[in-house]
């Protein structure tokens, strides 16, 4: 997982990550944009690697990274780890979060989590045709206003809306805007603890990563991940605390 491969080059293409739940047509969008013949599937966990492809738009080149389909960035499955780590450490110029119009609520769970990590996001509401068949319509403008990032509607299999999506992606990379996108409002108890933790966390990693999000991960007791983050941004702090678990060790532990 060479997530740092593309950072640090001067003339690198814009790196765009493609995130979304399984079965939202992510791979169809990926194929439509890159022309790469990656087989798309209709069941969870199809993309087990970060597939990469390039495309250009308005004389700019882009590198599109198709992240594994995940429901969340909180749990610790291989796919979620790959997706989260890329958004977090890969520092893509932009992340497209693909949502299925017919199950927007479940899909927004992921979108809100991505928006907690980075404001460089464009929302793509895909499968509008399927939703229409089920009498479901999405107010895209309203969604965009509420999330604080652009929201584009598409029907990837017919190509509908993909131009607008590219336009929005290019524009957003050009000018990420200054508005903070929608942040999840937690219940009072959580908010109080987070407010207390933020200054402590900030000392550890500075402003490299959203301290609010990091504080939440602390409450989430995701230690391995916190250590990974701190190691990434402030290595001298956690010498000897690393707890990477390899597949084999993991396996031995389980059997």
């Amino acid at each position, binding site marked *: 997982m060479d997530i740092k491969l593309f950072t640090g080059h001067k003339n690198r293409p814009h790196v765009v990550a493609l995130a979304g739940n399984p079965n939202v047509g992510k791979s169809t969008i990926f194929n439509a944009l890159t022309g790469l013949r990656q087989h798309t599937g209709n069941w969870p966990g199809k993309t087990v690697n970060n597939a990469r492809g390039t495309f250009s738009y308005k004389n700019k080149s882009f590198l599109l990274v198709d992240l594994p389909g995940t*429901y969340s960035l909180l*749990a*610790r499955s291989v796919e979620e780890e790959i997706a989260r780590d890329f958004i977090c450490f890969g520092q893509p110029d932009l992340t497209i979060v693909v949502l299925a119009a017919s199950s*927007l*609520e479940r899909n927004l*769970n992921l979108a809100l989590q991505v928006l907690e990590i980075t404001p460089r996001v464009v929302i793509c509401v895909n499968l509008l045709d399927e939703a229409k068949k089920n009498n479901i319509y999405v107010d895209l403008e309203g969604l965009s206003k509420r999330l604080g990032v652009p929201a584009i509607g598409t029907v990837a299999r017919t190509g509908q809306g993909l131009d607008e999506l590219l336009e929005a992606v290019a524009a957003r990379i050009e000018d990420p805007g200054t508005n903070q996108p929608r942040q999840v409002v937690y219940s009072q108890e959580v908010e109080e603890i987070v407010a207390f933790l933020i200054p402590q966390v900030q000392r550890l990693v500075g402003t490299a990563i959203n301290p609010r999000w990091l504080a939440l991960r602390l409450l989430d007791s995701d230690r391995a991940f916190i250590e990974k983050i701190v190691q990434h941004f402030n290595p001298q702090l956690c010498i000897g605390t690393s707890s990477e678990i390899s597949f084999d060790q993991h396996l031995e532990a389980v059997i």
Partner: protein
Amino acid sequence: MDHFTKTQKAIPLSDIPVGATGVIASLNLNGLLRRRVLDLGMVPGTFVECLRQSPSGDPTAYRVRGTTIALRRESTDQIAVYQLKMGPETSPPVPGKEG
């Protein structure tokens, strides 16, 4: 919600018959499974409709937040729900006719 009356006691999700709906009361699952079930939106207060059973009776598919999720009985035994009364005596809600 007026059309439904909660039964007093929470029952396991596995006891909900096909076609019936429940509201999640609590999860008695642990570890990764608990996280995954939560991540799919099955948090307390969520409506869950029992859609169908596998030909062999297990697993069972549920409708949750506009998606269909299949779970094994061992898991659904550990999810407590309030079953919503929507029996034959109280017909399903009709739009525009509520009081």
